[in-house]
């Protein structure tokens, strides 16, 4: 057990061992909770700054550059501002529900983050039987929070935003679930640790068996991350809070600290679902190559998370927002059928274990490629490429 | 009083609350809420007998609950779709006003 890899685990054991035995489990839990509450909001703060700077770079403007070195303390300024602003509750609002909604939005992602293994032996809440299910269950609770926020504000835009959000969350939950099912099917366990363990077998001497290196895993990862973007209300699926259409969607009527909570909840949700994606498809805290295993495992997890965040920021800067009907059609007519097909591909992969590697890839590629091409053709027929008569 | 008795009493109470809702409320959706409560009370009963009963078959209770949950989901979807369709047509969700067979 090398030290840098297990440094946090050892630290925790050291701290816990100071206390008398009866309270040790409690102290351990408190430490884990404290770590989650400290680490992820910190990543959130960093991400907001980096995101604003990156978006600024994409849009040819400097972005925040006044507070702190190169603007990197902007998050502190923002936080202080939102904490000190007046908390306004509209007179027509349903005050109890209006108060509860931000909590219902923020707490589930935190719970979800608790079951993610961020490094070797580093998981706050290990559920060997039902880890993945717990994560998914917690994720669904967000829908209710969004609805509560939109409905209790008694505002047209809020309600529209909430309705859009629920329709979107319900629709994209299916492909999300189905693409995780393929992983569960091949691992044979709902435990996130077992899923990572299953990806740790070595291929060709150097390459680790991440799920994304298999046909169903590659397709599943793409489907999963598309659905994850939509679940996290990220651009290009940010219709529920489209500022050019419905002000700020379901949290239009929130201000000050509650607004900050929504903001936090959204990013925590994004971290959680990305972390799940990393765990399911990108090998969790495993390195890609065996020779790289000297790098501490938690660094791998957070590194992958950072790369994903970078991609998401990049997407946000480049892709235009979808229209509502396009959003729905994309979920039901493309993602859902493709993830169902992906289940078949995964089953085929499982049953063709003794075949030579190339032969295993071929049917999977065919099974997935042909429907994709057919769908692509149908899509092009329905929507011929747009021509810009005056622009070019 | 054993744990089983407690759980059974809880299930019975939940069932009866749901029943009262289904009997009294005039809004179709609220009646549906009552029915959901009754279904869940039944699920609780299954699990109680699985956990504290003489268990002839190890997993009978959970399996039954799983099926019941699936069917309840289908029931809720179809029921709500019906209510929405009725609302669209008659502009009401009051059960008493939906009493004609002719369209």
């Amino acid at each position: 057990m090398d030290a840098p890899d297990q440094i946090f685990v050892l630290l925790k054991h050291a701290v816990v061992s100071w206390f008398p035995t009866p309270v040790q489990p409690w102290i351990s839990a408190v430490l884990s909770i404290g770590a989650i509450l400290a680490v992820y909001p910190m990543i959130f703060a960093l991400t907001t700054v980096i995101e604003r700077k990156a978006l600024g770079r994409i849009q040819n403007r400097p972005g925040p550059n006044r507070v702190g070195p190169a603007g990197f303390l902007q998050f502190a300024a923002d936080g202080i501002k939102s904490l000190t602003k007046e908390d306004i509750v509209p007179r027509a609002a349903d005050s109890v529900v209006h108060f509860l909604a931000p909590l219902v939005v923020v707490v589930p992602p935190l719970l979800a983050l608790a079951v993610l293994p961020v490094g070797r032996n580093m998981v706050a809440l290990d559920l060997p039987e039902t880890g993945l299910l717990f994560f998914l269950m917690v994720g669904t609770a967000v829908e209710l929070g969004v609805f509560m926020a939109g409905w209790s504000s008694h505002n047209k835009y809020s309600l529209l935003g909430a309705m859009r959000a629920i329709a979107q969350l319900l629709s994209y939950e299916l492909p999300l679930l189905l693409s995780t099912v393929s992983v569960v099917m091949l691992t044979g366990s709902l435990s996130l640790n077992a899923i990572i363990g299953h990806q740790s077998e070595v291929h060709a001497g150097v390459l680790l068996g991440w799920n994304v290196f298999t046909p169903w895993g590659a397709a599943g990862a793409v489907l999963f991350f598309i659905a994850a973007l939509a679940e996290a209300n990220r651009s290009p699926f940010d219709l529920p809070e489209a500022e050019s259409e419905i002000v700020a969607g379901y949290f239009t009527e929130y201000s000050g600290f509650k607004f900050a909570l929504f903001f936090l909840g959204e990013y925590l949700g994004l971290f959680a679902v990305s972390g799940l994606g990393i765990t399911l498809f990108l090998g969790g805290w495993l390195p890609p190559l065996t020779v790289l295993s000297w790098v501490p495992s938690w660094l791998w997890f957070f590194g992958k998370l950072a790369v994903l965040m970078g991609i998401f920021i990049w997407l946000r800067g480049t892709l235009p927002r979808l229209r509502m009907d396009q959003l729905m059609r994309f979920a039901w007519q493309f993602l859902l059928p493709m993830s169902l097909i992906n289940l078949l591909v995964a089953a085929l992969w499982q049953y063709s274990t003794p075949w030579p590697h190339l032969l295993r890839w071929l049917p999977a590629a065919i099974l997935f490629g042909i429907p994709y091409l057919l769908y692509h053709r149908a899509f092009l027929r329905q929507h011929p490429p747009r021509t810009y008569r005056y622009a070019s | 009083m054993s744990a089983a008795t407690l759980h059974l009493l809880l299930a019975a109470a939940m069932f009866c609350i749901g029943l009262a809702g289904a009997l009294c409320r005039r809004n179709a959706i609220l009646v549906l809420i009552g029915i959901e409560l009754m279904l869940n009370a039944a699920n609780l009963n299954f699990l109680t007998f699985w956990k504290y009963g003489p268990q002839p078959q190890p997993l009978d209770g959970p399996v039954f609950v799983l099926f019941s949950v699936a069917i309840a989901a289908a029931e809720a979807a179809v029921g709500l779709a019906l209510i929405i369709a009725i609302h669209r047509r008659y502009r009401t969700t009051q059960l008493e006003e939906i009493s004609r067979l002719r369209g």
Partner: protein
Amino acid sequence: MPPEPVLSLAFAIVAGLVLGGSVAAVSCRNRVHAGLFLAVALVGLALVFLRMGAEFLGFIQILVYVGAVAVLIVFAILLTRGSDSAHERRSNAPGIGIGLAVLLWGVLAWGILHRSPGAIATPSPPPSMAVRDLGERLLREELLPLQTVGLLLTAALIGAALIALPEPGISPRPSGSHGSAGTETPPSSPT
């Protein structure tokens, strides 16, 4: 495992959540609140399941009921808002309904209290539920029911979409630019 007291504090809290949520769900004047209280009651029930060692079912309970059914119900409440009229009565002969419910609970409770000690013995091995066993059971012995439920759910999906489609004569749909947008999910076109 130390023997836990039958009426523990945890059970009392959870049962209070279930019962309180249920009572509020069926008696709330505000329909959206009723829907939210339903969610509370069902979360409470999921906690009861968790306490009984049925982790899987507890999570499934929240996933399906809170994540889907409760959301659908509040959604439907929103979609059918136009039908509130000020002078409508809220309840339909509440005395009879509540009376019947209380009577039924009385009968059941009497039965439970009088019959349970003999019928229900404490089990020798505490039952546990491995998800793997559940899966094996579903895919081997309960294969036919499983397939049937799948068929039922498919039929319900299609049926619900069909029923909730606007009838052509009643309310003309807003003409989307590409026709069949959102036909699969009724809620996608807020009216």
